[in-house]
């Protein structure tokens, strides 16, 4: 049972699959450890490029479980990791520039439980959310700054399952003063969760506008309720379907521009195979 397996991995490795936690924390230099406000990565940017690899193993996961410890030796490609680290550093510096102080939990940072929620393992999600909450409380954390939509969504939904009184805010809501650092014209591929569940669509669109980045819109491709998903969330269930959705979405986007802008590491990972020039928002602003 996949949910049980993920839950066990979360207990053993602090992540849905075994991973060297130093991969998660490697980006952060000089960020204080103790602060009631934390920047919370849930190790999403750092590991998004491993999603394909692990999703392909899911059908064999139970048979492979005795060898899970070997996962500790699997690392994202260097260029993928460097890119993820530079995005996280950019987000950290944007927050500082906007006067926000925060800490980071380094290797102790727990995973959010998003995958349990999204795959419908709601009992496991509830029980895991409780552990995460208790950990945050034990560290005196009062405010969590998220950097990706899946983590933001999972934390925002904690209160449906457990008593949860920690403020959750996206970095997108905290940065006001931005400048675009690109002359290219982009098409935005919206994050489904930000756009249609978390009410942050206009937040990042206004940052893009403020930064003076040129964008191209088409109501049938980038409209609020016409824009399609990148396919990533279904990858663990059906790899091929996920790829087909990604390909179809990439084709649509590239009809508008060969430059695609995303706000989610999972969208980046799933679309980058089919899109020539794809950038995360944090890569084109400062």
């Amino acid at each position, binding site marked *: *049972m996949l*949910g*049980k397996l993920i839950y066990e991995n979360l207990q053993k490795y602090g992540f849905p699959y075994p991973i060297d936690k130093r991969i998660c924390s490697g980006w952060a230099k000089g960020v204080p450890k103790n602060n009631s406000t934390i920047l919370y990565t849930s190790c999403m940017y750092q590991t998004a490029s491993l999603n394909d690899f692990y999703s392909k193993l899911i059908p064999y996961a139970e048979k492979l479980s005795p060898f899970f410890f070997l996962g500790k030796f699997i690392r994202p490609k260097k260029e993928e990791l460097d890119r993820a680290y530079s995005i996280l550093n950019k987000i950290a510096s944007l927050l500082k520039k906007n006067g926000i102080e925060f800490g980071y939990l380094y290797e102790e940072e727990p995973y959010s439980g998003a995958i349990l*929620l*999204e*795959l*419908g*393992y*709601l*009992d496991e999600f509830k029980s895991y959310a409780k552990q995460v909450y208790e950990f945050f409380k034990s560290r005196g954390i009062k405010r969590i700054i998220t950097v990706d939509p899946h983590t933001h969504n999972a934390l925002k939904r904690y209160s449906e399952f457990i008593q949860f009184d920690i403020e959750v805010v996206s970095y997108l809501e905290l940065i006001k003063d931005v400048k675009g650092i690109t002359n290219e014209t982009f098409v935005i591929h919206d994050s*489904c*969760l930000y*756009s*249609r*569940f978390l009410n942050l669509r206009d937040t990042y669109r206004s940052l893009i506008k403020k930064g003076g980045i040129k964008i191209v819109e088409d109501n*049938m491709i980038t409209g*609020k*309720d*016409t*824009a*399609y*998903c990148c*396919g*990533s*969330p*279904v990858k663990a*269930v*059906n790899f091929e*379907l996920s790829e*087909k*959705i990604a390909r*179809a*979405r990439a084709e649509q986007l590239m009809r508008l521009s060969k430059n695609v802008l995303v706000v989610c590491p999972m969208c980046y990972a799933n679309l980058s195979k089919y899109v020539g020039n794809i950038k995360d928002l944090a890569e084109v602003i400062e």
Partner: protein
Amino acid sequence: MSWEIAIERAINNNVPKVYKILEEYPYILDLAKRLREVKMKVLSNLEEYIEQTLEAVKKTGGNAYFVRDAKEARELVGKIVGKGKIVVMGKSMVAYELGIRKYLTSLGNEVWETDLGEFLIQLSDEPPSHILAPAIHLTKERIAKLLKEKLGFDVSENSTHEELVQKVREFLRNKFFSANVGITGANAVAADTGSVVLVENEGNIRMSTVVPPVHIAITGVDKIVPTLHDAIIEALVQAAYGGLYPPTYINITSGPSTTADIEMKRVSPAQGPKEFHLILVDNGRIEASKDEILREALLCIRCGRCHLHCPVYRVLGGSWGDPPYSGPMGAMWSYIVYKDPKPAMYCTHSGNCKDVCPMKIDIPRVLEYIKYLGNKSAQS
């Protein structure tokens, strides 16, 4: 490749049209809001409304039945229709769910679907690929080939849409006028008057409900609304969100045909059917109505808008879900009527469906819950 072409054409034809309709007729938004409220009222007290509806139909001189499942439904319809009859069917997804057409055929009846899309589905012997436009997966070229091969129609790849429709019209007209029984579904059933409301554009439903001497309406208990006023609202809202507004026809049937033209005494039959039967089907709906989350799915008015906004449907088409239910609504309904949680597992929670749903059903949340139920039953 054929699916990709067909769905792209359908999306480009339909999606902008629905936006335009809602802009031009903004009262539809208020009607949809009201409809959600009254439907929720019924779903919170479904069994009582079923009783009320059955009574109301009997008062109009019609026959009314409640059936638990597909087997009961098939047996009842088989009993009413008998053998060796010609049966014309208006589009009914519930009839498909219950296997009515194939059952009646197996009894030795000649059965024809008369909605063009369903007619093509019958000819191709494929499951419907969309709740409103069942033959959405067939391109014009494939349809021409099908009509030529199955019925010998003089059509070709180059035939126009109009020519193809005309050929089917000629063929089906004969069937309507020789039919013994007309079977339809219902867009809504009014609990206060026992009236069945059907919305359509082709005229095939009007013919099926009026021309044959017997009319059977078969539908899910989820289609019950408190009043005839609400039932007409449901028809209007469904037509608008389906992208076909104003609808060409809205049919109201309250019992068999009657006249009061001799001394103002109301007698039956007159020119229309002499018998009217309403069959209300449970098949998992009542159980779902008792679950706070699944109940939401029963609000669905079958406009098919969620399909055309869903990234998974766009790729998988009608194969996503258990026929006749496909797309986001079909992933919910596959569980409700067939207890199949697998289609829900494919939901990527893109959320477009909930944003465009006229009933504001939080479809991703319902599907998340079905995933949960599916995971739990797999575990045990």
